[in-house]
């Protein structure tokens, strides 16, 4: 058989049953590669139920540093009888299929072009463990042991992780190591080890860390001084608030009396969750909520209120596959328009698009500064892929000199010093941003009545047309100011001059970077621009202006970011070509390249024809 031969360029997929203890074993596998200095990108592909349905875990190793998804499974570790028939089909020709051979495999499922590696997982467990739960759980650890032999993973690296993990529950260390050894030894005894697929230590990780985006965002909120979180559970955003709770427990509880420097309220629904954020921010605390698609729809009335009443709001939208319930456990970037223009009437919201855990951390912190400086909602659009999977990331950093930018808030002394009548909605600085006051600041000065209905510069209710227009024109001016405050895009210009650009945002970055390399190999040289904020900065406008053709790669059906670019930058639509992936799985470099080539093929054809 012609086996795929590869070193440090692998896709390994694990096929498990939801709720059978495989997640920890799989994490162990990925972490050991990470510890060997190798770029890994693990992804959970899990169903929208709790127990019993197929679930997959896919790990890509690439010493070129590519972190995007790649098709072609080199090795499948399948311990789920339910999905096994299909799993076998999903292995690439020349690949490996590793399975529990305690029970024999249906003869008809075997493939000639795939190497089958049977491991008697169940038998080994029954022989070595007596507790029925352990008998189930250690199957997973055993296959990690076998993989260490098959892929040449340093065994010490794995056992070290086990030891660190159970440092406080030492009695669990020996049985885990036993399981690893059982797997390793069986593989060595029965199969050529390593196989034609191998890993080798590299020094590509440096000081990088391995963490999921939701934890990172939560940590960013802690660092930014968020004290109030209000939320309603929804996949895939729940783990963000869970992590916020855990970090707060760690950093924000009084050592003596356990009193909390934070308040987390599980709301009755998303309308209430964002209502609480509006209330808390209005009252001078930093507050946020996290949600996903359906929650964003439900929050849209309040987003409009916050826009119009000029109350800061921070919202993390961990996008999942829409529309409607869609696929709650699959990824997409399809709430771009829903968030940019959320709510009825003329509304526009500031958006941030992180693409790594480090950026989730940074942008989460930045959201609070922006929201308070601009007195408006700021929505960070992460996604399931980034939020719920572990990613290699630059380490977090915090400059202790940094100060929270709380925006234009008048304190009691400032109120006393004012010589002119203060107006809550008076644009005294010409940037569209008025000065606000926090309830309780001053006995007689600075109180005002906040409302979502028309008011004049002094917050006095009016239905006067001119006052209304002045107000919404000022909001439009504030939007212009926002363009100068949001995060600059990231540009990577090709070494050679080119008139072709590729734009993307969020988790599309990884596939885009890899695609750029591959396209260059095919003589399609592209300049790259990663959008990090909405509204778009002047530099983005220039980037578009300087290229005849800009591909916009994104993970939704309707080319939503492209729509925003056309609409806000007044770009001729023909200049922007859509590159789309929207089947719920993360976009791949291959997919991007294919669409780019197809574009040229079609356009040359039509030019010719």
């Amino acid at each position, binding site marked *: 058989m012609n086996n795929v031969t590869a070193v440090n360029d692998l896709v390994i997929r694990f096929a498990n049953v939801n709720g059978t203890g495989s997640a920890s074993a799989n994490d162990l596998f990925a972490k050991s590669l990470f510890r060997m200095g190798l770029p890994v990108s693990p992804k959970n592909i899990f169903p929208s139920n709790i127990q019993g349905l197929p679930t997959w875990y896919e790990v890509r190793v690439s010493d070129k540093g590519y972190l995007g998804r790649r098709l072609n499974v080199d090795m499948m570790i399948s311990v789920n009888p339910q999905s096994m028939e299909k799993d076998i089909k999903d292995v690439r020709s020349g690949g490996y299929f590793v399975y529990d051979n305690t029970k024999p495999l249906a003869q008809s499922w075997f493939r000639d072009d795939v190497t089958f590696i049977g491991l008697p997982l169940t038998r080994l467990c029954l022989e070595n463990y007596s507790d029925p739960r352990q008998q189930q759980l250690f199957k997973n650890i055993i296959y990690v042991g076998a993989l260490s032999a098959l892929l040449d993973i340093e065994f010490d690296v794995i056992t070290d992780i086990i030891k660190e993990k159970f440092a406080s529950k030492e009695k669990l260390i020996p049985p885990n190591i036993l399981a690893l050894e059982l797997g390793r030894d069986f593989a060595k005894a029965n199969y050529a080890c390593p196989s034609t697929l191998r890993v080798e230590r590299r020094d590509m990780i440096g000081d990088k860390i391995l963490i999921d985006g939701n934890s990172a965002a939560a940590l960013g909120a802690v660092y930014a001084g968020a004290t109030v979180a209000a939320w309603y559970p929804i996949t895939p955003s729940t783990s963000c608030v869970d992590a916020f709770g855990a970090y707060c427990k760690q950093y924000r509880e009084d050592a003596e009396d356990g009193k909390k420097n934070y308040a987390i309220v599980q709301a009755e629904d998303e309308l209430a969750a964002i209502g609480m954020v509006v209330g808390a921010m209005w009252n001078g605390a930093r507050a946020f909520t996290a949600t996903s698609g359906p929650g964003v729809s439900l929050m849209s009335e309040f987003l409009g209120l916050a826009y119009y009443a000029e109350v800061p709001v921070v919202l993390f939208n961990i996008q999942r596959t829409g529309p409607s319930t869609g696929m709650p456990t699959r990824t997409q970037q399809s709430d771009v328009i829903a968030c940019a223009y959320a709510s009825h009437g003329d509304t526009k919201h500031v958006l941030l698009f992180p693409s790594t855990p480090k950026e989730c951390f940074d942008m989460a912190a930045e959201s609070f500064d922006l929201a308070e400086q601009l007195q408006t909602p700021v929505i960070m659009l992460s996604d399931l892929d980034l939020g719920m999977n572990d990613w290699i990331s630059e*380490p977090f950093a915090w400059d202790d000199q940094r100060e929270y930018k709380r925006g234009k808030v008048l304190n009691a002394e400032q109120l006393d010093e004012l010589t002119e009548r203060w107006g809550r909605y008076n644009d005294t600085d010409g940037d569209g941003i008025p000065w606000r006051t926090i309830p309780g600041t001053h006995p007689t000065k600075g109180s005002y009545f906040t409302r979502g209905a028309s008011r004049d510069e002094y917050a006095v209710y009016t239905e006067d047309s001119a006052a209304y227009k002045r107000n919404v024109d000022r909001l439009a001016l504030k939007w212009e100011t926002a363009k100068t405050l949001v995060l600059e895009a990231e540009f990577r210009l090709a070494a050679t001059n080119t008139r072709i650009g590729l734009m993307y945002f969020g988790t599309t970055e990884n596939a885009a970077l890899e695609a750029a390399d591959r396209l260059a190999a095919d003589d399609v040289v592209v300049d790259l621009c990663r959008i990090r904020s909405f509204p778009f900065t002047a530099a983005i406008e220039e980037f578009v202006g300087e290229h005849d053709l800009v591909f916009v790669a994104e993970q939704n059906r309707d080319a939503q970011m492209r729509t925003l670019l056309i609409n806000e930058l007044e770009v001729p639509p023909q200049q922007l070509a859509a590159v789309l992936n929207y089947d719920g799985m993360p976009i791949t470099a291959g997919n991007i390249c294919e669409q780019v080539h197809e574009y040229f093929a079609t356009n040359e054809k039509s030019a010719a024809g």
Partner: protein
Amino acid sequence: MTFIKSTFRHPELPTNELGFTRQYYEGVLSTLCAGCGHDSISAAIVMAAFEANIEPHKVAKLSGIGCSSKTPAYFLVNSHGFNTVHGRMPSVATGANMANRDLQYIGISGDGDTASIGMGQFVHATRRNLNILYIVENNGCYGLTKGQDSATADRGSHSKKGAPSPYEGIDLCALALQLGATFVARSFSGDKHQLIPLIKAALKHKGFAFIDVISPCVTFNNNPGSTKGYEHVRDHLAATNTIDFVPERKELTTEYAEGSTQQVTLHDGSVMALHKVDKNYDVSNKSAVSMSLLDYSERGEILTGLLYHDEESQDLHQSLGTTDVPLNTLKESDLCPGGDALNKLNQGLR
């Protein structure tokens, strides 16, 4: 529009312990209909805050949308106010309270705002025992959108359109009680002798203090069976889809003794029987209160007064174990774990 205030200020107006006059507690001019019960409630709040020596800037007033929800503009001009969106004031108040536990929160809502669109938030704010004075200005209808039945309208009561409400009316006091409200009262907008002390007591209560105030809508809560009311007017100028004529009314008032029942004739000629709880009434016995509410309602009477009070309850901050100082006063140094902690944390992620 009700001109509840005279502009004349006596040079030596009485002041409260803080040295403030009652006028200091007023708001801007009301734009409600003349005689609207809601204005009487605003006046009662002004009086209660004055008498209770509340510092206005230590109060935050919040409301939803409706005639009732406009009223926070009409009292305590030195307090910050927030007229939020329809039915969602409880969540905004919850967030505000989380941010600053030291302010006093007054939530004003209507029966539409609370019992229809806001039901979910009302239930959950109650259940969390949010520390707030929550007043429903209950007129049995949607005033601002021109008189549709609300969910507190009694079965068989007639709205502007003349069709009797086919559904059971929701008793917000009974509901609040069941959901764990720790201070439950009912009163009538016109009975300031009862209402002002109730508001004062509620302001002192730590936890969810609910007052359901019957507050007649002089414009829409109209009974076609009646010879009074604007039904008569409609005869003279066939109604268009705008409400064309609203007669100017006087504020309804009443005064009656504890333990007695009082009949109040509303502007539309219908009669409402109020029964005031007496001195011996036990405000700590939840199931007895429930029974009484049911009993009186079966008799067609409305029980008023302080119905239930649990002084020992723990409010949301206590449930969550938040620190004693307002969260919004914590400084960067209290909140940010700093660069070193982050480096340590990074270490654990390698």
